């Protein structure tokens, strides 16, 4: 059957069965309106919560934790391959609308331990396990004096064979197997306020150390440590041979990892390549995404979710999950309305097919295939769904408008009271339309099959 013929048939149906079709379309329209209204409300409220109530304009996204290898994985070895965020994904995140910049983080992919702190504490203390991250130095630019938090190898010193060949506080940065090293200033590290708090409130009193205030830290021109790379109390790196470097704490930053030291990205990448391999050097362990505004964080979370990344900040995740949960619940209500209205479509179309048995039989006699009769019925339902969807969307938009108006007029002012509680992104319109057509068509499938099965000989025998 040509499309033009199908259009003609459906147009004739709309003209003559207007009332019955409008009746059955009403349910679909109501269902679509409910669905779109609730989704728009959820999206709007989430944007308000994330954007204004909990103004988070930067969010850290993590890949899923490496899967539990299970017994088989342990037996066969392997498994446990760190997933990580591919550089492509970092670029993709950067292209998400509303994203200002993406700052990937690279965690140490090998065991390390540290010892030092004599300058402030009086004698050295050690950390038998040193967690650490590498971040783009620009992340800490606001917190650290310029020029302090940079990769020392950006301006390498003279060639050296061992630490004795270097002067001042410098050490010889020489990877295993390299013919010669270069003298390097102590690798700069930053720590979190959180770590300083823990140290001052819990560790220092227990050991009789002085508290390490921010001012003290800066006055001491940094605390130096020696860091043992590739070896800790718990074990050794899978590759490379352990060596010792010098590091200096140059400041406290909100961008630093909570527990452990945070180094310039280039340094960690080099070390990871040496002790963990190429993959450990390339795949980021998390990415901090800065949105242009808090309102856009919700979009960033969604975009991350599509890449399998989830927010590390539990507050943002909680808000997001909570609102998504409420949204899912309300959508379920709308789904029930749609299912019920699909059954009203079924009723109407079943009656329509019954009433038109002799017409269908005539079409079969003059050359229509069973498939064409079915397609005609389904197309009619799709068109009914389209009009019902359009009506539903209109109703949802008008309801949202009045709800906002009522909130503005009738509700007392409360903190973060927004101008609108709704968000209608373009895809919501498509989604509403899609569901409307889908449920109409689903409802009409049974009747369409019945229409295709009408026995022409028998139906034409009657008058």
């Amino acid at each position, binding site marked *: 059957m040509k499309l033009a013929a199908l259009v003609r048939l459906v147009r*004739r149906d709309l003209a003559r069965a207007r009332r019955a079709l409008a009746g059955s379309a009403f349910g679909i329209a109501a269902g679509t309106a409910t669905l779109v209204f609730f989704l728009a409300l959820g999206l709007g409220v989430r944007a308000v919560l994330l954007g204004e109530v909990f103004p988070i304009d930067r969010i850290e996204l993590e890949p899923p934790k490496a899967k539990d290898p299970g017994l088989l994985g342990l037996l066969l070895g392997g498994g446990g391959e760190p997933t990580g965020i591919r550089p492509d994904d970092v670029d993709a995140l950067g292209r998400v609308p509303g994203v200002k910049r993406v700052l990937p983080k690279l965690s140490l992919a090998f065991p390390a331990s540290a010892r030092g702190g004599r300058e402030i504490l009086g004698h050295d203390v050690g950390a038998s396990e040193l967690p650490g991250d590498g971040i783009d130095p620009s992340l800490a630019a606001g917190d650290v004096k310029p020029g302090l938090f940079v990769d020392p190898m950006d301006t390498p010193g003279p060639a050296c064979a061992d630490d004795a060949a270097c002067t001042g506080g410098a050490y010889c940065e020489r990877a295993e197997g390299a013919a010669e090293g270069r003298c390097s200033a102590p690798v700069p590290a930053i720590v979190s306020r959180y770590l300083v708090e823990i140290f001052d409130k819990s560790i220092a009193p227990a050991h009789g150390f002085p508290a390490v205030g921010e001012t003290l830290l800066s006055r001491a021109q940094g605390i130096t440590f020696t860091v043992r790379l590739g070896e800790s109390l718990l074990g050794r790196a899978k590759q490379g041979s352990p060596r010792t470097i010098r590091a200096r704490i140059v400041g406290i930053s909100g961008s630093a990892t909570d527990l452990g030291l945070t180094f310039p990205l280039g340094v960690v990448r080099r070390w990871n390549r040496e002790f963990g391999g190429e993959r450990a050097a390339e795949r980021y362990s998390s990415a901090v995404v800065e949105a242009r505004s808090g309102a856009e964080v919700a979009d960033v979370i969604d975009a991350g979710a599509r890449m399998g990344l989830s927010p590390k900040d539990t507050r943002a995740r909680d808000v997001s999950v909570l609102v998504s949960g409420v949204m899912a619940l309300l959508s379920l209500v709308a789904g029930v309305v749609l299912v019920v209205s699909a059954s009203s479509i079924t009723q109407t179309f079943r009656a329509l097919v019954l009433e038109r048995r*002799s017409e269908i*039989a005539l079409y079969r*006699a*003059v*050359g229509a*295939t069973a498939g064409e009769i079915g397609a005609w019925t389904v197309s009619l339902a799709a068109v009914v769904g389209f009009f019902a969807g359009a009506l539903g969307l209109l109703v949802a938009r008008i309801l949202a408008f009045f709800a906002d108006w009522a909130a503005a007029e009738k509700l007392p002012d409360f903190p973060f009271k927004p101008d609108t509680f709704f968000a209608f992104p373009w895809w919501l319109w498509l989604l509403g339309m899609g569901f409307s057509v889908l449920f109409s068509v689903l409802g009409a499938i049974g009747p369409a099959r019945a229409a295709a099965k009408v026995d022409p000989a028998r139906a*034409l025998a009657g008058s």
Partner: protein
Amino acid sequence: MSVPAIRTRGLSRVHDGGRDARRALVDVEIAIEEGEFVCVLGPSGSGKSTLLAVIGGLDRGYQGQVELFGEDIGRVSDAALARLRGERIGFVFQHFHLLHHLTVIENVTTPALFDPRGDEEACLARAKHLLDRVGLADRAGDTPAELSGGQRQRVAIARALLRKPKLLLCDEPTGNLDADTGARIIELFEELHREERLTIVAVTHEERLARAATRILRLHDGRVDASKEEPA
């Protein structure tokens, strides 16, 4: 000799009507050549409508073999059979089966909806020509409700002829018409047969239609009464 338009071999049709299965056709063997005007006569309930539905490809629940223009219709797909009906066969029914929500011209062009190769303008021109042919050129815009019985049957005949079929199958085409009107419909069939060499099979229980036919088949209790087969 050319392939017959219709040939049946051992054709039987049993309607399963609950407890008592009814044998509407029993071992029917007929051959109808192209260009014949065959009238199938028989009392009510003798299986005439069933025979027409089977050879028109509308009823596939038969036993035996049915060939249309040399093609065994038991072996083709439902869709292919539908195409064959559209292209080669025109149906005329006792109750006209016009669509009341459409105008006369729209009714006549209905078969074009299911013609994958149809050309809209050519189809409209043909419909007008046919309406002229059946004497209803001035009623194209009317609805069937505004027409008399005889006029409605003429519209149905025009519709049956739209896609230039080779075979016209008519089930009691005058059954709902008074004698005069019926007579004029019969004349129309005679003309179509004579002028367009259309193969016509008309079933009826009225002897007067038989006078126009070139051959008469008598059906009794689902059996073709071979002894009474007669040239008209």
